[in-house]
């Protein structure tokens, strides 16, 4: 059985789907790594990673526990800087500029690259203050329109528009995570990093966030680490497979990775023979 390349499709497709539309766009890299090694003390967490992550597409990073997926994500927005024993070799660029150059301020970097964490972590403040935080720390004042725009972008506006001054912690888990997404997109970044954003949520809430990611990718580039392979298959345009030892084993269109991976180890991993 062979799969056709998308540009050879002879399908009539009167029904246009987002993923099909995105698949037809060429890959324009916005983040790139070249020979990236990351060490925690003497332990090597990432081994010679070379990858180009395309703009306005969803890139999923999958792999077994401890394979370095989260380490890679944290290296992109330099959250790894907070770990004193962490050491970087090689290059990681954002729009062509190495983010580890001396003249790059990690705080400025994180205003362009937002992050959503596994466990929802809204501030113990009102919903409005959570959303405006990103703009206020940049010294900009946030208007009501900014708040509405961010909450709409996170598919949360309709649910909370009458309670913007109540505490963010009173929301349900799924709503809190969407609030964290609103907080991340309010300062209008270019890239959104997501570290297993739905693994702490129930399936319905997780599904809402998956739908949301499909909308977010129109405006932002999304990089999502997930240990749920089916989720990666459902929502991503490109998939990177890391295996134990911090090695990037395969990076390709999601359909190729899940239907016909090039590396036998990837086939074994996704069919559940190990990992």
């Amino acid at each position: 059985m062979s799969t056709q390349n998308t540009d050879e499709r002879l399908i009539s497709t009167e029904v246009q789907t987002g993923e099909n539309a995105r698949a037809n766009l060429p890959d324009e890299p916005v983040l790139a790594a070249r020979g990236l090694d990351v060490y925690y003390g003497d332990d090597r967490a990432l081994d010679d990673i070379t990858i180009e992550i395309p703009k306005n597409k969803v890139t999923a990073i999958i792999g077994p526990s401890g394979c370095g997926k989260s380490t890679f994500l944290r290296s992109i927005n330099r959250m790894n800087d907070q770990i004193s024993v962490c050491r970087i070799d090689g290059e990681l660029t954002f729009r062509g500029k190495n983010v580890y150059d001396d003249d790059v301020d990690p705080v400025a970097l994180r205003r362009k690259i937002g992050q959503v964490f596994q466990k929802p972590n809204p501030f113990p403040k009102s919903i409005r203050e959570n959303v405006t935080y990103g703009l206020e720390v940049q010294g900009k004042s946030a208007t009501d329109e900014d708040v509405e725009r961010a909450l709409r972008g996170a598919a949360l506006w309709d649910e909370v528009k009458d309670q913007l001054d109540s505490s963010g912690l009173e929301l349900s888990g799924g709503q809190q995570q969407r609030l964290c997404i609103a907080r991340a997109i309010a300062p209008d970044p270019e890239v959104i990093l997501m570290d297993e954003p739905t693994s702490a949520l129930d399936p319905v809430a997780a599904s809402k966030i998956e739908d949301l990611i499909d909308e977010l990718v129109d405006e932002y580039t999304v990089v999502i680490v997930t240990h749920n392979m089916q989720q990666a298959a459902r929502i991503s345009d490109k998939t990177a497979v890391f295996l134990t030892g911090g090695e990037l084993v395969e990076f390709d269109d999601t359909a190729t990775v899940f239907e016909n991976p090039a590396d036998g180890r990837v086939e074994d991993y996704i069919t559940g023979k190990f990992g």
Partner: protein
Amino acid sequence: MPRTEYQLQLKALKSDVLGMSELVLERYETALTALEDKDAELAHDVIDGDDEVNGRYLSLESECIDLLALQQPVAGDLRLVASSFKIITDLERVGDLAVNLSEYALAAERERYPEIDVMRIGREAGWMLEEAMDAYATDDVDRAREIAASDDRLDELCADASEVIVYDLLRTDYGDDIETVVDDVSRLLLTVRDLERVGDHAVNVCARTVYMVENDDELIY
């Protein structure tokens, strides 16, 4: 409704299967016309166009595989994908049968047995396939069962026609004409058989539609 992208992909699949059926039915109609009017140009159109039908089949097969691998459909959705997978095979076969009919149209030299209305059989079979695809489009299981039941009528027509042809061959003495007569007769028998097959494929479509909607495999075989 959640999973909008996935819902759209399911809709797209059904729409694309119907698109392929329209293509195949159009080829089939053209082949029948070529047979009736002995139109060589139309016949060549069908024969050359078989690549497009096969290409469409491969694309649709790829669409089904993608849905299975990437979206993990279950229950009704899974039956939709599985049924569509089988139905496109039947459609591709009908495309091949249309090519056969066109080849018969090219080879035939004269009209034989005007009392056997081949066109009527052809139109009956084509109508069955069209109605079967309609039932698939609208999830109409009652209609699907009706169409499947009408296959008996088609089989009868075909059996009668074949009988008439063979009887005539046995009873008449054609003398030196016998070789061309045998050629024509075998081609005619093949035509009737191929038209019956079109009906059988329509029944398959109905069977898969019933399975898709009600998880009932009674009509399959």
